């Protein structure tokens, strides 16, 4: 069940070992990777924050890594990031193509810091589904697949069919990733024919 933060007691010796190990490890990496790895946000295509997340710019600062969202998620969609993620270690992430978010909205209710804001299903914007028409069976005009349309929780609003081809509507797509998960086509680089781009995570915070 993930990392038990309250009970974890690190001995002085272990602490030193980890610290030395980490810094040695970092030292061995080329300089740009070292810095990038430590501070690079894990949010990317199909790598999404749970519903209601504040912009990525302040996410790591606001999230206290309590793991409640991870714990409450009935589908095990939310995964805590491990130590390899630098300053983002311990923050929650959804791997859309592995287990998408089913929008049960339990995580937003338990977040104690407001890092996940209390929003409704419809207000959720984890990202935007973007269809790759070069890959999609329908748009290549061979196979009648409507999987993404069928599984979409906002059928006919977020994804509709036009002449049996799926079209995504930005105004209703929550970026839950259910379509990405279900998409039968996997490209060589692991992409699906429909992917979630975390467009909204990059918003700048107005202070």
């Amino acid at each position, binding site marked *: 069940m993930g990392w038990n933060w309250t009970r974890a007691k690190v001995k002085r010796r272990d602490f030193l070992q980890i610290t030395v190990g980490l810094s040695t490890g970092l030292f061995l990496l080329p300089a740009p990777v070292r810095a990038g790895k430590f501070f690079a946000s894990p949010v990317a295509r199909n790598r999404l924050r749970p519903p209601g997340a504040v912009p990525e710019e302040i996410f790591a600062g606001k999230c206290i890594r309590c793991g409640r969202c991870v714990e409450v998620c009935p589908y095990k969609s939310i995964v805590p990031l491990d130590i390899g993620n630098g300053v983002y270690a311990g923050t929650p992430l959804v791997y859309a193509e592995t287990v998408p978010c089913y929008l049960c909205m339990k995580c937003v209710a338990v977040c104690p810091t407001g890092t996940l804001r209390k929003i409704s299903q419809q207000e959720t914007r984890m990202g935007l589904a973007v269809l790759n028409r070069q890959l999609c069976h329908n748009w290549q005009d*061979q*196979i*009648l*697949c409507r*999987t993404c349309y069928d599984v979409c929780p906002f059928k006919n609003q977020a994804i509709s069919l036009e002449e049996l081809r799926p079209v995504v509507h930005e105004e209703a797509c929550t970026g839950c990733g259910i379509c990405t998960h*279900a998409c039968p086509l996997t490209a060589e680089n692991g992409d699906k024919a429909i992917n979630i781009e975390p467009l909204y995570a990059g918003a700048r915070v107005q202070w």
Partner: protein
Amino acid sequence: MAQSRREFLKKTAALSAASYIGMNLPYAKAGVAPGAEEQTWHRGSCRLCGTGCRVELGVKNGKAVALRGVKDARTNFGYLCMKGMLFWKCMGHPDRLTKPLFREKKTDKFKEISWDQALDIAAEKFADAVKQNGSNSVGYYGSGQCLTEETYLFQKVFRGGLQTNNVEGNPRLCMASAVGGYLTSFGADEPIGGYADIEQANCFFIIGSNTAEAHPVLFRRIMRRKLDNKDVKVINADPRVSQTSRIADLHLQFDPGTDLTLLNAMAHVIIEEKLYDEKFLSDYTAFKSGKNETVDLEAYRKFLADYTPEKAAAICRGNMTADKIRQTARWFATSKATLSLWTMGINQRKQGVWANNLIHNLHILTGQLLKPGADSLSLTGQPNACGGVREGGGLCHILPGHRPVEKENLRNQVEEAWGMPKGRIPAEPGYHTMAMFTAVNEGKIKALWVNCTSPMQSLPNVELYAKGMKREDVFIVCTDIFPTLTTQVVNLILPAAFHFEKTGVYGCTERRSQLTVKAVDAPKGAMPEVWIVREWARLLAIKLQDPLIAKCVESYDGLEPDYALPKAIWDEYSQKLTKGRDNDLRGATYEVMKQMADGVQWPAPTEEYALTGGTVKKFVRGMDPMADSHAKDDKPYQFYGPAHPDGKLWIWLREQAAPEEVPDAEYPFYLSTGRIVDHWHTSSMTGRIPELLRANPYAFVEINPKDAAKLGIIPGDMVEVESRRGKNMLPAKVYEGPTQGMVFVYWHDQHPDRLINKVTKDAFDPGSKEPEFKICSCRIKRISGPQALTPFIYNG
């Protein structure tokens, strides 16, 4: 070609580092000839639904690697659905059965045995059952997915060899009512027209069919027709707003089971507004209130007097209004050509045959038949329910070539063709499906052969019939490619070859027979069914000391099972048993079907005619050679169907009749079941294809938002669906699909908690004996919030 020093060093370092640890870095194989990886494409028809799409299987190094559609195919124009495109992945699947498995008791573990032992055991058990309990204690339960050759050979050995008509198949569960409807209304089974009518129809009346999910490729043709011609109307009548309803100009929603009223009310409007075709009626039609009771138009008018649109709308409820019914009737009657399409919503009913009759009535009344674009077309769900089971003699009451068992002269024709003495085939029809499994429950059947189907999942009220199948005194053999819920309760499992691993013919909805020739080898140990039956019949003949059993397979001696054996069986069936029958297939030889990429539509009495593609419209002189050869007069349409001696189409006076079980205070909801686009039947094939499984990993229950609000159910909640027979626990999907007071569940899921046939009712149509899967009553309640579920495919 230039590269910098830095780049060179980098690549070299990476490559040598990789080679030290023994791996290769990926780079494009430039400058190397493609070599032996040649891919070949093999023609055949799709393994899944009844549309009959033409496909090509890609084979590389003796293994199936891809599947594609072909642009010039007449059925699908090159389009395939997802499950069609992916079914080839079943072939090399690690779950494939490859060894015969046997256990003496059903509680024991299976042991691997050799084919010789397996066939010997099967023969021994069937012979013992016959010796001790008579011929009627054995049975065959087949499938609309077997090749025609397989169904034909099985029924030949059972009827001619073992002398029992206990030959049934799962088409009883899906299209027996359509057979009854066609026979009673048109006098001949199977549709008059076909898919070619879609491109010429001006009005589509889709009732009791979710074409978009169950026949996606045909749905594309309907949609294309509508997009290209703005005046084309689509009417969808269904208690549930389905994906098909999206393209409808008019959606009629009503309480399940009230559609007979709707159809009679449409007839009422057509008569009252004089929209019927008077000449067509006087030339070709008789009115019937019973098989031998002929009435006239006036009596029909009186009969319909009670079905005014106002009264009907009140009975049907849902979104129905009198105006909608009038509008529907007017569009239906006055369009240039009206095409009706239906599937299980009409067939799987206690009044399935009547519902079929009432649709045919509308077509006969308005003359929306026989002309281009107009037809009354029942879509089939399985690839060979028409070709193999309806035509090949795969049901207990019909012999090959649409011959009813009870007709002595027709039995004699079959006996003669088989070289058997007169009277060899019993005169009584055998057990129909529900009676057969009841007989299993009662211990009357001692040995049962289940071929290529899974009754442990597909029978209604399945728990009841599972009891019988689990009996230790019932020996069950199962031929299949994967473990299924049914292999749990059998004694002997025989591994079979899959589609494209054997040769044979599939006949789809529109009377089209297509040949699929073996393209890849079956996994070592799996054998084609025709070989299994032949070898089994030989042993059976020895054990029962009956040379006539051996005679059933004598002419196939020594033929190799991949091509020569099915060809010999097909030749016998098509040349000897369809001769002079309405499904005359004499022209559709293997040689002809190899030339005809899209196969042949019967009747096709000669090879010369079959090479034109066969008959697009039955009964039309100039288009159907049998309409010419069987002509009684000089009218353009000739109805030579064997069931109507008067050569006419019959309009039936059929009353509204309620389903067997309707909601009450205790069980206040209607329950209906159906199919989802990604899965097919019991999902033993599609569930093993990861792309399809992840699209729809498990079944769910669809609930109307108003009902959900009353019961406090929100999307994703776990909901219990309970009837008088059993219960399920499924995640809820709340949307404006089912009408208020109705829930809908998909039936592909094998998980014991989500196996909806535990809940459905086993009432059946008194005429067609087809069970009423589509309507029963149930109650629902919320159990918990969302739970993470794991997909379940039974795997031995």
